[in-house]
Every structure is written in structure tokens, then in C-alpha cells.
């Protein structure tokens, strides 16, 4: 297949996805042009709005970075949502312990470590269930997601209840000294979030390309048996992939608690679907680390931009999710068509030889 035809197919796939979105909007009686403009304005209409996109970008980057490791090893870490939540729980716990006794910077640093530990432990549990309990990581992970969710609700309403208020809205918000500082006044995004997110994905990219750890994970993902025979301690590496992914998810939990424009508290559904969004990003990037960077920014922009739809066009903000989902589905299907065409053409050349 020629390069041009290959790219043509990809573009056709994306075009089909966008066409479907347009049809859905038309069916709802909304002008597609207006909807797309609302999303655009909502995402990049003003520096403040773009700052929101950047704050959403950070947790997606962190989750995508972690998932690149588990996907490399051929693992479906659907438990990532729970790992984000567990990270947030550990962060909140650590901040509650240290906020009055330590300087803010130290408290924030310790909280980040706590988040990493919380996420890593939760992910390792999914790994243990998979490796030693024979529970498929998809179901083990989902179960752990539910449990993390229940635990949040319990903490918010029980031990960490706000004085005088007994609702699920969240724990007592932390004081501004425990917020990450904004880049500029009014631009509510912190350099720390962005740097942490980008650093994570760049490090993962380097690890996958340049280290034995990354090479061995890829070997496991592509052929577990061969990797084992070539001397790779497969179980240990799979557990490590889980734990590292969980650690990064836990760090995303930290961002979601202490980030500049976050709610600065623990509340139910704090993970906000960022973990699952990370899965979509990595699938769309076809497991490529560098592509994951712009794609996660793009997806964060769609997510943030579509919040405007609910406010201004009586549309549900989930339209963003629909666009993201359709894009990934289109890419999956186009990928299948491409490999079928490639197989057919290589068969032709083999036969003519």
C-alpha cells in the first residue's frame, strides 16, 4: 500500500468520526458550527480558559505516561481510575497530618510521595490479583475502582467529615498555602503541574526507548513466553509496570487535590474520568509516547471546551467524550483495515514471486 493511500485512510477515518459528530448535533437541532465554536472558545477563548485546559492536561499526561508502561507489557490497567482516587486519598491523609506542623512546601512534597505510594499499592494489588489470583486485570481493576470509590465516600462522610456539614460534597478544603502557586495571577495553572506531567511522559518515553526495563516490558507485551526464555523475570516486571503506572496515577491524584484550580479537597468521583481518558489517549496514539503528548492536550481541550456546551447551548458536556470516543474507534477500525490491506498485498507479492 502506498504512503498516500495509508494517510488517506487515516484522514478518512478521522473525517468519518467528525461527520458522525456533526450528524448527532444536527439530529439534536444544534448547529454543528456553533457547537464546535463553543468547544473551541471554551478551550482557548481566553488565557484563563486555556489555563484550565492545561490543568486538565497534567493528570491526563500522568495517567497516559503510566498506561504506556502497562500497555507496553500487554496489560489492561483499567484500575487506573481507582489508583488516581487512592493517590488522592493518601495525599489528603498526608496533608491532614502535616498541614499544621510542617512548612507548606514540605507538606506538599510529602503529600506527593504519599500519593505515589497510595496509587502504586492499589495498582500492585491489581497486579497481584492478576498474577497470583488468576483474576483478569480488567475485572480486578474495576473491582478496585469501586472499592476506592466506596472508601472515598466513607471517608468524606465519616472520619474526614467537615465540621457541621454532613454531605458528600467533600472534605474540608485545604488553605491556599497548600495550593500550587499559579504562573501569573488570574492564570490558574501552576508550572509544577505541567512540568511534572511532561517530565513523567518524557521519562517514560526514554525508559521505553533506552532502558532495559522498557525493552523487557515490550518483550513481555509482545511475547511473554519468549521473553521468559530470553531471561526476563516476567512476573517481577509486570508487577513493576503495574506499580509504576499506579504511582503516576497517584501523582495525578496529588495534582487533583493540590492543583491550582482544583477543589483542594477529597470528594467522590475525584478521578473525574482522567484515568479512562488516559486509556483513550494511549490507544489513539497507538502506544506511542511522544504522540501521547499532543493528543492528551487535544483531549484535555475537548473535555474542557465541551463544558461550555452545557452552559451555553443546552447540550450535554459529554459531547466531548463522544468526539474522543468516536476518534479512537475510527482509528481502531482504520488500523484494522490498514493491516488487512497490508496483509492482502503482501500475500499478492508472495504469490507472484
Amino acid at each position, binding site marked *: 500500500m502506498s504512503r498516500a493511500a495509508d494517510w488517506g485512510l487515516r484522514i478518512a477515518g478521522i473525517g468519518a468520526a467528525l461527520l458522525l459528530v456533526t450528524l*448527532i448535533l444536527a*439530529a*439534536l437541532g444544534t448547529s454543528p458550527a456553533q457547537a464546535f465554536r463553543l468547544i473551541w472558545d471554551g478551550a482557548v477563548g481566553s488565557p484563563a480558559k486555556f489555563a484550565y485546559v492545561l490543568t486538565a492536561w497534567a493528570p491526563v499526561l500522568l495517567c497516559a505516561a503510566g498506561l504506556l508502561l502497562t500497555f507496553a507489557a500487554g496489560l*489492561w490497567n*483499567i484500575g487506573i481510575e481507582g489508583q488516581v482516587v487512592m493517590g488522592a486519598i493518601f495525599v489528603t491523609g498526608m496533608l491532614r497530618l502535616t498541614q499544621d506542623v510542617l512548612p507548606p512546601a514540605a507538606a506538599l512534597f510529602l503529600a506527593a510521595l504519599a500519593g505515589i505510594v497510595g496509587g502504586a499499592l492499589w495498582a500492585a494489588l491489581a497486579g497481584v*490479583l492478576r498474577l*497470583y*489470583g*488468576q*483474576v483478569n486485570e*480488567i*475485572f*480486578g481493576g*474495576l*473491582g*478496585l475502582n*469501586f*472499592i476506592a*470509590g*466506596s472508601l472515598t*465516600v*466513607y471517608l468524606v*462522610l*465519616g472520619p474526614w467529615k467537615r465540621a457541621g456539614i454532613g454531605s*458528600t460534597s467533600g472534605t474540608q478544603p485545604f488553605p491556599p498555602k497548600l495550593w500550587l502557586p499559579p504562573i501569573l495571577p488570574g492564570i490558574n495553572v501552576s508550572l509544577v503541574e505541567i512540568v511534572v506531567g511532561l517530565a513523567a511522559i518524557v521519562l517514560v518515553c526514554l525508559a521505553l526507548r533506552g532502558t532495559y526495563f522498557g525493552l523487557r516490558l515490550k518483550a513481555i507485551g509482545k511475547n511473554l513466553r519468549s521473553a521468559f526464555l530470553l531471561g526476563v523475570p516476567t512476573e517481577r516486571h509486570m508487577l513493576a509496570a503495574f506499580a509504576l503506572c499506579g504511582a503516576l496515577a497517584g501523582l495525578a491524584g496529588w495534582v487533583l487535590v493540590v492543583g491550582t484550580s482544583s477543589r483542594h479537597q477529597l470528594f*467522590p468521583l475525584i478521578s473525574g474520568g482522567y484515568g*479512562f481518558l488516559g*486509556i*483513550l489517549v494511549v*490507544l489513539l496514539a497507538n502506544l506511542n509516547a511522544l504522540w501521547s503528548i499532543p493528543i492528551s492536550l487535544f483531549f484535555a481541550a475537548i473535555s474542557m471546551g465541551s463544558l461550555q456546551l452545557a452552559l451555553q447551548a*443546552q*447540550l*450535554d458536556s*459529554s*459531547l*466531548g*467524550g*463522544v468526539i*474522543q*470516543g*468516536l476518534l*479512537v*474507534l475510527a482509528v*481502531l*477500525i482504520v*488500523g*484494522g*483495515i490498514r*493491516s*488487512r490491506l497490508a496483509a492482502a498485498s503482501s500475500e499478492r507479492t508472495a504469490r507472484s514471486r
Partner: protein
Amino acid sequence: MDIVTFAAVVLAASPPIIFAVIGETITEKAGVINLSLDGSILLTAMTAFVVALTTNNLILGCLAGMAVGAAIALIIAFASLTLKQPQVATGFVLTLLCRDLAYVLGNPYSRVPGPQVPHTPIPGLMNLPVIGPILFDQNPVVYLSLVLIVLTWAYMYKTQPGLKLQGLGEKPAATYVRGVNVNRMRYVYTAVGGALVGLGGAAFSLLVKPGWARPYGIEGTGWIALAIVIFGGWRPLRAAAGAYFFVLLQMLANTLQSALPSVPTQVFPTLPFPLMILTLVLVTLGNADWVNRLLNRLPEGVARWLRRTIKALQTSPPAALGTVWEKQ
């Protein structure tokens, strides 16, 4: 509440899960995983409600739900059986996509009152002691769910096409040798299973949780249905038992709430979820090497007893589940 009323309430709340679980059991029995249940159920529930509302016809609503469910399943079948893309990836993307699509398309119909399946006790039979109020003082959807369980069981184990269905998931090559067009039949059963999942969605929005809203309040149930299929060992009767067990747990959680006022109420509805996962660990335990090694070390009497218990609980999937078959 006495036990008979309680049983009737459990039965009345179970059709959506029963339909979804039986549908997914059929699909997976044919060797295909439709992972999209959590989204499929939401989208089909919304579709069924909107169609029933606008046409004022419950049956059209159900049919619409089934059609959408089958269409989603066919996307998975196409991507995996024809395009050889991973089933799990397509299924997962569709889970999120269908959920969001349901929220978007259903937005104008949120919290609108609509039609609902009427209560239709069966005269005569409803007056039987105990089973009358449980089984026959219900509505058509409940009756249908009961019939479906029995029919599926009979189809799967007693008929020729049912045997072939089992063969599809166990060993496609052997099924092919016996004259079955493997991929075509896998398409068919994936669609049938998806349609039943769609009926499950319709049973939510037209019966158990009438109407539509965002969030709809049943998010997560699709994942549980997938877990129940495993718990049910890919057998319709045991899967149905698992579904009833889950609904029972939900009901118990509600009851428990009043008994334990110190625990926040919002915790209880989520309890069945972790419990379901724990049971998953139990039923898959027998497949783990280290368990067998451990058992070999225990005294013979204890080991034999444990082994029997684990064996009774143990379920293993259709041997070719999730794999793609190609002749040569």
C-alpha cells in the same frame, strides 16, 4: 417485610441484569467478549425510553433498545472477527462512547415522565401459596426474563444449534469440521447477545428505573453484569442465580442501612460491587498454580475437602474465548 414479599421485590428488580447477563453469556459462549456492557445498557435504556415516549408504544421502545444493543455488538464483531482488532480495546472504547452518547442524545428527555410497563398479575396462578405472589404477581417483563432463562438453558444444552454454539467458544476448528460457518455464527450470536443487553437497558428505563436522567444511577451495573457472567461459569442457570444474588445484595444493603446508622448511607449501595469482585477471586482461585501446590502440601483429608469446595466454585471460560479463528 416478610420473606415472600422480599423475594417478589428481588424478582421484580432483576430483569435488566438477567437480560444483560444472559445476553453476554450467549455472546461469550460463542467466543466473543462484548466488553461494552456498561455503556450499552445506558445507551439502550435511553433509546428505549425516548422511543417509547415519542411513539407511546412500549414494545417499540424495547425493540429500539434491542436494535441499538445489537448494533453496538456488531461493531465489536466487525472490528474483531473481520478486522482482527483486539476485542477488549474496541469494547472499552464503546463503553465510554455509548455512555457519553446516551448523555448527549438523552439530554432533552432528562427527567421527563414517560410510559412504564404495567403490573399484570396472572389471574388464578397469582393466588397460589408462596409462589403465586413471587412468580405470578408481576409484569410481562419479569415473566419474559424467567422464560428467557429457561429457554436459553434449553437451547444451549438440548438443541443442535445450541451444541454448536458451545462448540464455537470451545474449539472453533472442531466446530468448523462439523459443518459450521464459524465467523458467521459468531456474528449472529454477538448480535443476539447485544440485543438482549439492549433489552436489559429497556427494562431499566421502562420498568425498574423508569425515565432518563444524567447520571442515570445505574452506572457500573454493566461491569457487574460482566463479572456475573464469570461467576456464573458461562452457564445460563448459574449466571441467573448470580444475577439474583447481586440484586439480593443490593436489597440487603438498603435494609442494612437502617440497621447500621453509624455508617454513612452512601456507602451501602456500593457494597455489592466489591463483594462481587471478591467472589470472582473465589471462583477463579482453583485455576491458580500456587493454590494447587499449597493443597498438595496439606493433609489429605483437609485437602480433599478444600479441593472439592474450590472445584464446585471454580469456573473456567470457554476455551477459545476472545480468540480469533481463521481457517489455516
